């Protein structure tokens, strides 16, 4: 008798589990101790601001057990509103050369060149996710939520974009982003951690694409 009751309730139980999972994936779990600040004038921090022109970084790319090191040039092309990213070895051979545009007239990602050994769909997809997150510009229509830690003053700004949610943790002193996290459902796609900075671009940052386990580290150098 008891067995029969459970069997008849099982479909309802299943629907309940699916609904619970679905609801929990829609809500973003913000950092511990942070409290929602309502009616605040919220602006998303921009990593490479509008005055940025170009810079060079010492770069390490880790893919599974392989490591490539070299120099990355990031240049803003104002005419086309694009960022041009070239990562090459110390002896000058290019690993990849890509173009990203976030915002007007439309988001754009293009690989001009990628070395044969890196020319894999999952690597290209990871590079697209990572650099679109780095140069992200969300439409003004996107709703922003601000959370703040009452003691440290650190802020977390959350923005939803289609099925993805991005979280920007800001430095209480500079108000620049110190950690960016991109989530899809309950899984973290990629994170960007930045050392505190007050200039128009970060001197040091790390990108960790958790989905594909690809890591990129950047340290600015003067050529």
């Amino acid at each position: 008798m008891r067995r029969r009751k459970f069997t008849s309730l099982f479909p309802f139980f299943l629907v309940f589990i699916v609904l619970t999972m679905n609801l929990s994936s829609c809500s973003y779990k913000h950092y511990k101790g942070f409290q929602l600040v309502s009616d605040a004038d919220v602006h998303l921090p921009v990593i490479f601001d509008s005055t940025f022109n170009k810079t060079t970084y010492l770069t390490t790319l880790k893919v599974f057990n392989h490591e490539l090191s070299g120099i990355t040039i990031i240049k803003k092309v104002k005419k086309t509103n694009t960022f041009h990213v070239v990562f090459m070895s110390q002896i000058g051979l290019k690993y990849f050369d890509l173009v990203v545009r976030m915002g007007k007239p439309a988001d754009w990602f293009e690989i001009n060149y990628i070395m044969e050994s890196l020319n894999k769909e999952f690597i290209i997809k990871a590079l697209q996710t990572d650099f679109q997150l780095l140069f992200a510009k969300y439409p003004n229509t996107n709703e922003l939520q601000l959370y703040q830690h009452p003691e440290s003053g650190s802020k977390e700004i959350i923005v939803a974009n289609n099925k993805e949610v991005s979280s920007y943790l800001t430095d209480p002193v500079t108000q620049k982003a110190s950690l960016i996290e991109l989530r899809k459902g309950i899984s973290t796609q990629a994170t960007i951690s930045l050392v505190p900075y007050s200039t128009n671009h970060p001197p040091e940052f790390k990108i960790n694409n958790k989905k594909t386990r690809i890591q990129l580290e950047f340290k600015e150098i003067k050529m």
Partner: protein
Amino acid sequence: MKIYNLLIISLILIVLSSFQNETEVYHKLKDVDSFISKVKIYSAETFSIKSDFMQEKHLTILEEVLISEGHFTFQKENNVLWEYTHPIDYAIIVYDGKFIIRDVDKLSEFNIESNRMFKEINNMIITSVSGNFLNNSDFEVSYFENNDFYMVNLIPVRPEVKDMLSEIEIYFDKKDISVSKVKFIEPGDDFTLIKFFNKEFNQPIPEQVFN
């Protein structure tokens, strides 16, 4: 009077630029055999090379050229040290069949045979600096010259090299047949130009240089 001055300046500039073009223009080398004999003699007589180098990276997206500097060491048969001192401390060491990268204090060792990319890079380095392009089926070779240099143009045949480089140009100084410049041209017209200077030949090179 102003127009007269302007005309004179323009004339001087035209003469200077035509003179520069004349020295930079390369013609097809007629006596290839004679050049090959000279390279063979140079190659047979050269056991080691020590040199400073300046590397220019020309990218179509940048107006300015990215400059790196360092020291280069070659020891017969296949031992090579590329030591960058500016803008960063970095070295590529090819020694005893191993490919070692020293990035500041961190050492990474690779087996050349097990890594196709390093193997190709190593082959290109050795080919470029040792004149080892003779009878090398990996490249289509053509020969040029001007007043100061012989220029050997190498077009890669193998797809794995073609993917990285469309051409390699090796410039031999006519005075001593040593390699003065190497230009690595990539698909899409970006290129790397490495200029060698303060060259020393056949000086003893201690083994620890590569360790």
